[in-house]
C-alpha cells in the first residue's frame, strides 16, 4: 500500500488501472473525464504501455476489441454521450466474449445534456445498452478510494468471465480530490503484466495450435441460440458470485434509504443525521449494479416500514429496487436530474416524511 496521496478521481482511476496491469488505453476526449486519458497519455509510455487517441468513441471501442482479442489488458473511458456511441462495440465485445474495463464518468443527459454529475445512464449500463441479450458486470464506487480498490478487481473479473466490466462513476467522483492509498507508490516498479499468449483463446498467432477466431457471428439459429445460452450461463454465475453491497444500520431501520455512488455518500450523511435526531434510518448501498443485490435488499426491506430510493436521475435504479422489494413495503423516490445533486437536508426531509411529493 502506498502512503495516502491526494488525487483527483479521474487520475486515481488511471493510476489504479495501470497498477492493476492495464497497458493499453484507447479513448476520445470528452468532459468530465479528460484527466483520465491525459494521465494515461503521460504514464502508460513510462511502463511500456500504449496510449492512443482514437478518431472517435466508435473507433476507440473497436480498438479495445482488437486489443482485447489480441490478449492485452485494455480499457477505455468516456462519459455518457461517448458511451452511447460505443454501444455497438460493447455489444460485440460481449458477443465475442472479450475482457476489458470500461469507465463511464456519467454526466447529465439526454442528448448533449450537460457536464455535471448524473446517474441517468443506469439503464444503459445495467440492462445491456446495445443490441442483443447481454450484460456488463457493473461496479459503482462511492469514493475515490473505492474506485481504486474496485479497479484492482475489475480486470480480473473481466478475465474470469471473459466479459466487459463497467465502472460506473459520475462527474463528482471523477473531478473530486480525495486522499487515496494505491496498491503501490508511484515510483515503485510494477510487475510485468501477463503476456498476451497467456490467454490461450487470444489471436496472438497460430503457433503450434489450430487458429483462434474472435467472432460474434453465428449464422445458424441453433448455434446462435447455443451461444446465447452459454453467455447467459455466465450472467447466472455472476449473479451467484459477484453481488456486492454495503448495508449500514438497516437491521432496525424503519426507513431504508437505497442509493449508490456519490448519492450514497450524501444519503449516508442524511442517515447519520437522522439517527442523531432519533429517526431510525439505514442505508443500503448497491456496489454491483449488475448483478443487483436483490436478495439482500429484499431481506433489508422485509424488516423496514418503507424504502426511499435516492438517485441523480428521474428514477432508474428505482425499477430494480421495486423488483427487490415487491409488496413488502412502500417504495418512495427522490431524485434530481440534469446535473443537480440532492443535498443531505433534502434527503433528511424525505426520511422525516417532510418535503412533499417525491421529486
Amino acid at each position: 500500500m502506498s502512503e495516502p496521496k491526494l488525487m483527483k478521481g479521474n487520475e486515481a482511476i488511471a493510476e489504479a488501472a495501470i497498477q492493476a496491469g492495464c497497458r493499453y488505453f484507447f479513448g476520445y476526449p470528452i468532459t468530465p473525464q479528460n484527466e483520465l486519458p491525459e494521465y494515461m497519455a503521460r504514464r502508460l509510455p513510462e511502463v511500456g504501455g500504449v496510449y492512443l487517441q482514437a478518431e472517435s468513441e466508435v473507433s476507440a471501442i473497436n480498438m479495445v476489441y482488437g486489443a482485447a482479442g489480441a490478449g492485452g489488458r485494455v480499457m477505455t473511458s468516456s462519459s455518457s454521450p461517448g458511451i452511447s456511441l460505443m454501444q455497438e462495440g460493447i455489444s460485440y465485445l460481449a458477443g465475442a466474449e472479450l475482457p476489458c474495463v470500461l469507465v463511464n464518468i456519467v454526466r447529465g443527459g439526454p442528448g448533449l445534456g450537460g457536464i455535471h454529475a448524473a446517474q441517468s445512464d443506469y439503464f444503459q449500463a445495467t440492462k445491456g445498452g446495445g443490441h442483443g441479450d447481454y450484460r456488463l458486470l457493473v461496479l459503482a464506487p462511492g469514493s475515490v478510494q473505492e474506485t481504486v480498490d474496485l479497479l484492482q478487481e475489475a480486470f480480473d473479473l473481466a478475465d474470469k468471465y471473459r466479459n466487459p466490466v463497467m465502472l460506473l462513476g459520475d462527474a463528482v467522483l471523477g473531478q473530486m480530490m480525495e486522499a487515496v492509498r494505491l496498491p503501490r507508490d508511484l515510483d515503485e516498479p510494477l510487475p510485468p503484466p501477463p503476456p498476451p499468449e497467456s490467454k490461450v483463446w487470444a489471436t496472438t498467432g497460430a503457433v503450434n495450435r489450430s487458429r483462434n477466431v474472435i467472432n460474434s457471428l453465428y449464422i445458424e439459429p441453433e448455434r446462435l441460440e447455443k451461444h446465447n445460452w452459454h453467455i447467459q450461463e455466465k450472467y447466472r454465475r455472476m449473479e451467484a458470485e459477484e453481488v456486492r453491497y454495503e448495508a449500514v444500520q438497516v437491521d432496525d431501520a424503519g426507513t431504508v434509504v437505497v442509493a449508490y455512488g456519490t448519492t450514497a455518500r450524501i444519503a449516508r450523511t442524511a442517515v447519520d443525521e437522522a439517527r442523531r435526531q432519533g429517526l431510525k434510518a439505514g442505508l443500503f448501498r448497491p456496489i454491483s449494479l449488475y448483478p443487483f443485490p436483490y436478495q439482500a435488499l429484499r431481506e433489508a426491506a422485509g424488516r423496514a416500514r418503507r424504502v426511499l430510493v435516492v438517485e441523480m436521475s428521474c428514477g432508474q435504479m428505482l425499477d430494480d429496487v421495486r423488483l427487490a422489494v415487491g409488496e413488502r413495503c412502500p417504495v418512495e423516490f427522490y431524485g434530481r436530474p440534469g446535473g443537480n445533486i440532492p443535498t443531505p437536508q433534502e434527503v433528511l426531509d424525505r426520511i422525516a416524511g417532510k418535503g412533499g411529493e417525491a421529486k
Partner: protein
Amino acid sequence: MTTVVAQRPKSLSDVVMNYCPGCTHGIIHRLVAEAIDALDARERTIGVASVGCSVFAYNYFECDMQQASHGRAPAVATGIKRVLPDRLVFTYQGDGDLASIGAAEIVHAAARGENITVIFVNNANYGMTGGQMAPTTLLGQKTTTTPLGRDPKTDGFPIRMAEMLATLQGPAYIARVSVHSPQAVKQAGDAIKKAFRLQAEGKGFTLIEVLSTCPTNWGLAPNQALKWLVENLIPFYPLGEFKKEEGGA
C-alpha cells in the same frame, strides 16, 4: 518423380467458400494467402474480417482471425497491432465497409501510418445485402437503390479511395490492382506481396485496392462481368501505384 507446380497456400483454409460463381473474392483470398506464405508468416499473422460478402473470411484464412463490426476493421487491426507490434496484421474489407460506414476509420488508420495492410475489394456495390448503391458505384450504374442509374444530383459522386488516401502523409504504399486476367492477377499478387513485405519491414500503412467482379448483382455472366470491369471500372478507377514507400509511422 512428380513435381508440385501449384497447390493450395498454407494460409488458405481447405473449405468451401460462400462466394457466388464468377465472383473474384476467391482469387483475391488466394493472393493474400500467397503473400502471407511468401513471408512464411502464417503463424504470426492476424487477419480481420469485415462485414459484407467477405464476412466469413475468418473461416477462409488459416491464421488467427478477428471479425470486426461494420467499417471498423482498421480500428480493430490497430488494437491488435498495438498489442502485438511484431505480428503481421491485415484487414479484408469491401467498398461499402471501407469507403462508406468505415470512412473515418480507414482515413485515420492511414493518417497514423498504422503498420497494417488493408486489402480493399471494390466491386462498386453492396454485394452481401443484395446489390445496393455503394460509395464506389459509378455514375449511371444501376443498383437496387439506384434503379434508374446513379444520378449525381441525388446520389452524389463515386469516391476514388486509393487516390484520396494517397494524399495523406501516413501511408507507405497504396496501389490499385485488378484480377480480370492472368496478367492482372499476377500484378495484383505482386502488389499484395509488396504491401505485406513493407509491413514486415515496419514501413507503415499499406493499402491495396482490388477491383473485383459481382456477376450476381451486376446481372452479368462471369465472363461478361470481367469485360464490364475492364470497360467500366478501370477507366474510372485506374490501376497503378499512388503512394510508394514514403511517410510511414
